[in-house]
């Protein structure tokens, strides 16, 4: 499995650059993950989304539905795309250290 340095640690990543062990995540890792998404600096708005996703994941072991993410953070979907160009699932979830979802989605 491919490895790449994030936040000063060598971490396993999948083909799309998602980190494989959510336990490895911290804010420094997030900042480096964001760079792979073309986000050079994480602003307060970025962090609001990342922390919401992270907290939800720790509680439920899954990503929230996008609709819930928008409602709870107060961002419109378009605004999330402005912040994370690959969107909530492939962009924001990746930065928050969540695994990529699979199935009928």
């Amino acid at each position, binding site marked *: *499995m491919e490895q790449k340095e994030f936040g000063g640690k060598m971490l396993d990543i999948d*083909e799309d650059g998602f980190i494989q062990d959510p336990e490895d995540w911290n804010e420094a890792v997030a900042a480096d993950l964001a760079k792979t998404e073309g986000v050079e600096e994480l602003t307060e708005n970025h962090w609001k989304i990342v922390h919401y996703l992270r907290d939800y994941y720790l509680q439920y072991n*899954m*990503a929230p*539905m996008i*609709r819930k993410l928008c409602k709870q953070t107060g961002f419109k979907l378009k605004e999330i795309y402005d912040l994370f160009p690959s969107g909530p699932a492939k962009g924001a979830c990746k930065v928050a250290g969540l695994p990529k979802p*699979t*199935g*009928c*989605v």
Partner: protein
Amino acid sequence: MAKPDEPEFYEKEDLLKVDWKPPTKGWMDVPVDIRPGTYIYPGKAKNLKILDLPNARDWAVTDQDWKLPADWKTTILDGMADRLSKYRSFKLFMDVCVRCGACADKCHFFIGSGDPKNMPVLRAELLRSIYRKDFTALGKVFGKLAGGRELTEDVIKEWFYYFYQCTECRRCSVFCPYGIDTAEITMMGRELLGLLGLYVNWVIEPVANCFMVGNHLGIQPHGLKDTLEFMADDIEEATGIRVDIPINKKGAEILFVTPSGDFVAEPGIFTCMSYMLLFHELGLDYTWSTYASDGGNFGLFTSHETLKRLNAKIYTEAKRLGVKWILGGECGHMWRVIHQYMDTMTGPADFLEVPKSPMTGTVFEHARSTKMIHLMEFTADLIRNNKLKLDPSRNDHITVTFHDSCNPARAMGIFEEPRYVIRSVCNNFVEMPENTIREQTFCCGGGAGLGTDENMEMRLRGGMPRGNAVRYVQEQHGVNQMAAMCAIDRATLTTVADYWAPGVKVTGISELVANAMIFTGEKKRTENLRLEPIPGVAEDDEVEAPSDE
């Protein structure tokens, strides 16, 4: 700059430059060309371990060395011998093809790619050539002259590539004079690959999740509860009605099972909200299950063994909860499993009762063995017996067409019920051309575990015939929505429609029903279940036009 896993990466003009002329070189002499956008990532070791599958390791499709076990050749040949003796259909399909070619141009992947190995006849030939060489007298003696070829690692790579470029949709089988079921051939190909630990992650992770947690997405019980409660909030916002959420309720009359895509992905979640509203209005004594929390069964795309393991969970849970019968939601491949495998694989479910609608008294005799009926059968019966108060004019801003999902259509033959339901709740319904609907329906291009983004080029190519038909009714009749009763459709047709027929939105049928239904105690309905203003109604209240998100 778009990437190969994004639709924007592909120019329509490039994808439409398809050359269907047969190549001059023989197919056995053309090695497989694996390029980004057309293959799926391999199954991760952790998922194989959960399922006790062999040769769990991490590898990449683009690697030269796929880390096959040392005795891989024997494993495949023994595996073939075993299956040829166990499955009469497999043996028959290997023997009976006369290569007439009737199937060739019926496959959406061949139409969209022009790759000869996507002709169903040639896809089967990938396996059949090994069968000829090693299992027929003629092939053993005459080899290539008798259509046989040597089993090599390149053959295995070719199998992996092309058996994951078949959506097991069975359109080709409709046209085969012998009725060869190419899906069963692909299933055999995938089973054999599985003996070497060759799976795609988009299939095997859902299988592992479903086996371990109860659904493909790995949603745990408290996560499902939270999700359904969130939906109940949105339902209340749109309708003023607070629905109950019965979960794991012992002694309920009905167990309701739907694909887990309906829990998280748009537009599936609106379909799910619609189920909840319908059941609430009826006062149905039903329950969700957190263990049987997926109607979908990606085991079907893996092997008979995993198929059986996942299917059995639904019935085990029905028994544990003590329900009378099972109602299935708007899922596609679930019905291939229920109608064509369940009975001899898991059944008979003689601890359950023959489904009987508590509202109309209708007994669904055809489900005497499986004890499970489709929501559209249930809903059509409700409408037929005047049990729903409907105002179809609420859907007047919609001109809808209906995409027959491959499995409900070809594996179940449910053509009339969904159309009857749609016509009852929408005044503007338009059919796509007749060679693209009913038993001839074109696949979404993302079924059988192919609906992942790294496979985007093949999804767009395979989705082109369907997209083309949608575009036709869009241009001719102003169609702006396409209904489908399958979660894979709701997920992947959205991409197909956005690409080939932009402006056409995808919806579940139940969503159209719920938006037309008049509920007891509802508030003035100004927003639909997506919380978008309903045109015509909303304008009276000077609400902004719906944003196009």
